[in-house]
C-alpha cells in the first residue's frame, strides 16, 4: 500500500461512520458464529451416567459429585466440545454464552 493510498483511505475514513461495534456501552446483540463453543448446558434428565464425558475431558473440568450427578467447573473448561461430542444421549450442549466474568473463582462452578 503506497502512502498516497493510505492518505486517501485515512481522509475518507475520517468522515465515514466508524467500524466499531456499540457492544459493551450500548445494549446491542453480539453476533456469535453458529459453531461457537461457549458455556456448557447440561440436562441431567437425559444423562444415563456413562461417564464418557468425564473420561474424555482433557482438562479434568468434569467431576462426579455423587451417583449419576456430574458437575462442570467452567474455570477449568477449555471449551473443546469433546464432552458434547461423545455424549450418547446429547445431554451436554455448548451454548453461545461467552460472557464468563466473575469476581471469584467459585462462581465458575456449575450445578
Amino acid at each position, binding site marked *: 500500500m503506497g502512502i498516497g493510498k*493510505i492518505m486517501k483511505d*485515512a481522509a475518507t*475514513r475520517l468522515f465515514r461512520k*466508524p*467500524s*466499531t461495534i456499540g457492544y459493551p456501552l450500548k445494549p446491542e446483540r453480539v453476533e456469535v458464529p453458529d459453531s461457537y463453543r461457549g458455556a456448557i448446558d447440561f440436562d441431567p434428565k437425559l444423562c444415563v451416567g456413562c461417564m464418557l464425558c468425564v473420561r474424555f475431558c482433557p482438562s479434568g473440568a468434569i467431576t462426579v459429585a455423587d451417583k449419576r450427578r456430574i458437575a462442570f467447573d467452567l474455570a477449568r473448561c477449555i471449551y473443546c466440545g469433546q464432552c458434547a461430542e461423545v455424549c450418547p444421549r446429547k445431554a451436554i450442549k455448548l451454548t453461545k454464552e461467552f460472557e464468563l466474568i466473575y469476581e471469584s473463582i467459585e462462581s465458575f462452578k456449575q450445578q
Partner: protein
Amino acid sequence: MLALELLAAAPLIATASLLYDGVDRKVRARMQGRVGPPLVQPFYDFVKLLSKDRIVPRASARLIYTTSPLLSSALAVTAGSLLLAGLAGSLRVPGDVVLILSLLTVASLLLMVGGASSGNPYAAVSLARGVSVLFSYKVPMMISVIAASAGGAPLLSVAGAVELQRKSGPLALSSVSGALALASFLLCMPSEGEVTPFDVTTAETEVVYGFMIEYGGPYLALAKLAKSVSRFTAALLASSLFLYTPLGSRPVELAACALGAVVLALISITALGTFVARVRVRQVAGFYLRLPMVLALGALAALLLGRF
C-alpha cells in the same frame, strides 16, 4: 502587571494543550475507523495520574528524578504563557521568540535527563537518541523562527512579528522568505511534539517509552503535560509568526490564530503521525540536516536579499 498576566495565561495554555491532545486522539481514532476516546480523555488521564502513588526507583538520582518533571512542565508552561502575552501585545521585549524556543528546548532536555537519572538502561539509550534528535531539529526551527521575526519592531519578538503582519497580511502568504520558513517549521513540529515518524526518543516498541519508562503517577502526569504544552506552543508559535491574519478586531484575530494553530497541528502532527511509520535515529538527523535546513537557510537568504 506582566507577572499577573503570565499567571493568568498559564492555566489557559495548559488547558488548551490538553484539549488539543483530546482532539488529536479523537481525529487519529476516526482516521483509523475507530470511535476513539472522549475529547476530555487527557484530563481524565492527568487527574488519574496525579492521584496515583509516587514511586522513586532505588537506583535513581533522587533529587533530579523527582524535580525534573515539575521543572520541565513549569518551563514549558512559561514558554506558552510568554507566547500568549506576546500575542496579546503586553510583552514587548526584543528576542522573546528565541527565549520561548530555548525554554522549550530546556524543558525537553530536562525531562530526558530526569528520566535517564532513573538508572534504567532504556532511559539512558533514550537520552542519547533524544539529544541527537533535539540538536538536529532545533537548528532549522530556530533559523526559520529568526527569519520570520527579524523584520518586527522589537527585534525577534512575537509582538513585533504580529504587528508587522497586521499591516501587511500573513507572512507566509506575503513573502517567499515566510513561506520557506513556515515549510521548514512545519517539518520540525512532529519532532517537537514527539510523534511518529520522529518519536525515536520515546519509541514504545524499541525503548519502551524511553525516558518515561520509570516515571509513574504524578511524575508521568507532569511529564505528559510538559510534552503536550510544548506540542501546542510550537503550533501556536507557527500560527502567530507565519499565519497571523488581520481581521479588524484583536479578539477575533486571536481566536483565528488559535484555530490556525489547531489546523497546523492537525496537519503536521496528527495526520502525519497516522500516515507514516517510525524512522530510525540516523534518518531523523540526516533528514533535518537536509530539507528543513535548506528551507530555513533559504528563508534567511531570501530575507537578506529582499532587504539589501
